[in-house]
């Protein structure tokens, strides 16, 4: 690992000054991704700014019933938080489906959003990767691409975003609060990550001199009946092949509210609002859910080793929604 200067600011304004002073500065949360990438020389920051000393670790409820999660809240603390477990079980389940107990104790909410892809060609210095070296090419396209994207990818990059948490946040209409030299602003989570296009090295809408301060969850009654279902190559401690974050509200047998986002299939959490809209007012039946699945997966393209993800995602969507509809019936 290349050496670097280490800074641990106590205030956001100090952190922003440090960030603006150095081109090669990186923000460090739990280190579960950045330290690993630094050890592999994929990331080579000249300065590391530890944000865990910032006063951004609280989970609070606002006046409108919104919940504001500080950016340095640990994944385990958020997963175990009473308000999240009761009002947004999909988020608690998504966090618990990610990584291991040790890593969840380390990882921060801001770091989880900013984590890099786990594409093995991105990690392999000997492989071609447009994300790591713009213009170099992509060895995943013709390589082993079982874990790769079926939606939102481009000829430049077929990597997926690995987060489970972000998939739930996308379904919950979460908003990311960021701040920088020009002040604070908000970015909807669903718009936070970019699709690769011709520039897979540009991964988010966060500017280099900004940092994430919080994630806000607007109140959503339908989220009390929500779930995160994840299919992976082993039962625990593995990244998703396909995951589904869903919230469903049924009234008199008809879908009243539906939120649906997919993980493991795209460079960002995948959500199609028009697909959700097709279900609203329709009977909460497998046929309706099948239509939602087809509309969500419209345009999906498989590569040599991941074509199965299209059918897997379709089935997991229908399964998740049918399961939630049954829970509704049982109430």
């Amino acid at each position: 690992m290349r050496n670097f200067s280490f800074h641990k600011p106590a205030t956001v304004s100090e952190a922003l000054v440090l960030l603006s002073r150095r081109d090669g500065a990186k923000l460090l949360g739990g280190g579960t991704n950045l330290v690993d990438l630094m050890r592999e020389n994929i990331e080579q920051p000249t300065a590391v700014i530890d944000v865990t000393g910032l006063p951004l670790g609280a989970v609070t409820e606002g006046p409108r019933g919104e919940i504001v999660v500080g950016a340095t809240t640990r994944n385990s603390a958020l997963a175990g938080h009473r308000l999240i477990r009761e009002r947004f079980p999909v988020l608690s389940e998504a966090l618990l489906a990610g990584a291991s107990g040790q890593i969840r104790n380390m990882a921060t909410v801001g770091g989880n959003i900013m984590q890099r892809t786990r594409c093995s060609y991105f990690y392999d210095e000997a492989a071609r990767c447009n994300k790591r070296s713009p213009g170099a090419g992509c060895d995943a396209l013709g390589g082993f691409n079982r874990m790769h994207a079926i939606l939102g990818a481009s000829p430049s990059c077929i990597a997926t975003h690995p987060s489970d948490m972000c998939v739930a946040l996308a379904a919950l209409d979460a908003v990311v609060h960021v701040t920088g030299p020009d002040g604070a602003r908000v970015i909807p989570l669903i718009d936070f990550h970019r699709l690769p296009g011709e520039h897979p090295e540009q991964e988010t809408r966060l500017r280099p001199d900004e940092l994430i301060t919080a994630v806000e969850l607007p109140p959503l009654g339908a989220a009390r009946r929500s779930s995160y279902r994840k299919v992976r190559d082993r039962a625990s401690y593995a990244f998703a092949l396909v995951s589904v974050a869903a919230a469903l509200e049924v009234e008199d047998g008809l879908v009243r509210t539906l939120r649906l986002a997919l993980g493991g299939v795209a460079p960002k959490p995948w959500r199609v609002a028009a697909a959700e809209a097709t279900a609203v007012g329709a009977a909460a039946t497998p046929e309706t859910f099948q239509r939602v699945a087809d509309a969500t997966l419209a345009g999906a393209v498989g590569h040599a080793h991941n074509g199965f993800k299209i059918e897997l995602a379709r089935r997991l969507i229908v399964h998740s929604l049918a399961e939630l509809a049954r829970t509704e019936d049982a109430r």
Partner: protein
Amino acid sequence: MKANDTHHDRPTDPGDHPVTLRVNGATHRLTLEPRVSLLDALRERLHLTGSKKGCNQGACGACTVLVNGQRVLSCLTLAVQCDGEAITTIEGLAAEGRLSPLQQAFIDHDGFQCGYCTPGQICSAMGMLAEHGEGMPSAVTRDVAATSIDLSEAEIKERMSGNLCRCGAYEGIHAAIHQIGRAARGTAP
């Protein structure tokens, strides 16, 4: 910068940092490069070699230690991040040479073969049992809002999935943890 800034708040050029590590109750004042992991500081500087370097990339759990009572991976933690924090390693669990109940349970249930993953397994299990005691759900908990969660076989397996054992001593590992988990809840093993 404020007058009461401590040393680590000041921007510095690449170079050594003074770091105070409180390990198993003893205070150690070290001077470290920022890139030194907590694991390397423990093993190479403090000669506490119980914590193991298996994969050095956060995949195996052999380096698990407790920081302020929480289980973490010392290979992905920078030592400078732990300045002033209370760290417990496997060496800190046997007070005055007497094995902790969990260590004894690992022996009683054959919770290891080669023993390489054992310090990480035991530190992880200590942290996991505390998490369970505080009501933390897991990925196999049917209702994450439940106020009481039975520490079943499935729960133990899921909660310990961050610790790999290449000998495959999982049966004994789970039995040892199950015994201590039940004892902690006042149930006869």
